[in-house]
């Protein structure tokens, strides 16, 4: 199991774009009015998790457990 990758809860995300603007790997993008993570680019730094004002992002490990 690798380090947990970021995952956006699409039910909570309000598309403010904060996570996208701070991601050092350009691993996030906006699609369909919500932020999405490109898992292969995510380095598990958790900056996006900390920056989200409403707690919509969490860590998910390789076995898909949250």
């Amino acid at each position: 199991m690798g380090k947990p990758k970021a995952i956006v809860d699409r039910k909570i995300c309000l598309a403010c774009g904060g996570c996208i603007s701070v991601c050092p790997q350009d691993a996030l993008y906006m699609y369909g009015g919500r932020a999405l993570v490109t898992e292969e680019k995510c380095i598990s730094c958790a900056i996006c998790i900390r920056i989200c004002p409403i707690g919509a992002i969490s860590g998910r490990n390789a076995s898909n457990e949250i």
Partner: protein
Amino acid sequence: MKYDVVIVGAGPAGTVTARFAAESGARVLVIERRQEIGVPVLCGEGVSRKIDDWGMLEGKRWIANKMEGARIFSPDGTMVSLSADMAGNETGYVVYRDIFDQELARQAGKAGAKILMNTNAIGLLKEKEKIIGVKAKQFEEELEIEADIVVGTDGVESKIGQWAGIETRLDPKDLETCCQYTLTNIECKDAFCDFYLGKKIAPGGYIWVFPKGKDIANVGIGVLGNLSEAGMPKKLLDDFISKNPNLKKGFPVRFLAGAVPVANPIESIRDNLILVGDSARQVDPITGGGITHCLEAGKIAGETIGKAVELQQFDKETLSSYETGWKEAFGKKLKRNYMVKEIFLDFDDKTLNMLADSLKDIKFDEISTFGLIKALVLKHPTLLMKLRPLMKISSEA
């Protein structure tokens, strides 16, 4: 599809740029990924009265409320009241940003700009290294839009700048992470924008209450990114509301999240490329206000584009009158306020309380900077040390 200019993002920066570019003869296309301009609103909706001087907005439908001034509350609740003239950038009007944005878009359309909705930019079109347009997706259809100039007005999370090789990534210490309720069923007797400061209230930011009417207000919070944790802004805002007897009675009709760059501006031009608005970090690092800058910079960008099209020259040098123009208009202010922001971050709650206590009885519209500092220091001599860096900045400006 071939245009003189393609503008990515139909917020105020995009549509004002579009309007003035179209008015000066350019063939303009604006693409917008959302299905409705200005929706969802991602903003506290406080705008300076400065916009009256520019006359870019017609009618009054976009105005929710006219402000008489601002009140700043220190951590212990001491209030400092500022008249509208002194309060500067963020008080003047509380607006309906959706109507505001749509009115600016209407003007762009009237000037001849075309706006394409539901269209998401997915990359730059390049010929070798030269930017020659934008790749976009409208629903599932891929579009190649050729243009001599690409304008990135794609907001805080700008990809256009990044694709052009500009370092757009924000350090968390240069981002305010925000959320806001629009609360109804509350009392807003006074037309004042209120700001609440304090490390426990909003670390590195503030809570705002902007009345949109007699019984409705935007109540929001900004926390500096490096001082925040997952979901902290919402938790602190909920806590603040639950402890305020007036706000506690309210019920929300809207909830939104936001991200505001409070950074030093970045380069805003390259060959065949211009950035305007949040994408160029044209935001006041103290207040987080950016609308007036979008309007001011958008007009300069549009006029610069007009000239470039006339000359058929689209290199960085030709576009540099845009960068010079906006830096002359408000670039110095942004730079200075970034330094002020850094100094303010070092102030603990005790210092903020002392500051507020010194300022609370001063009539701001009557006093000089020197008189102000004298009054501050007489009351709380220890403030002198803390304020020295600020005095240095104001004497240099």
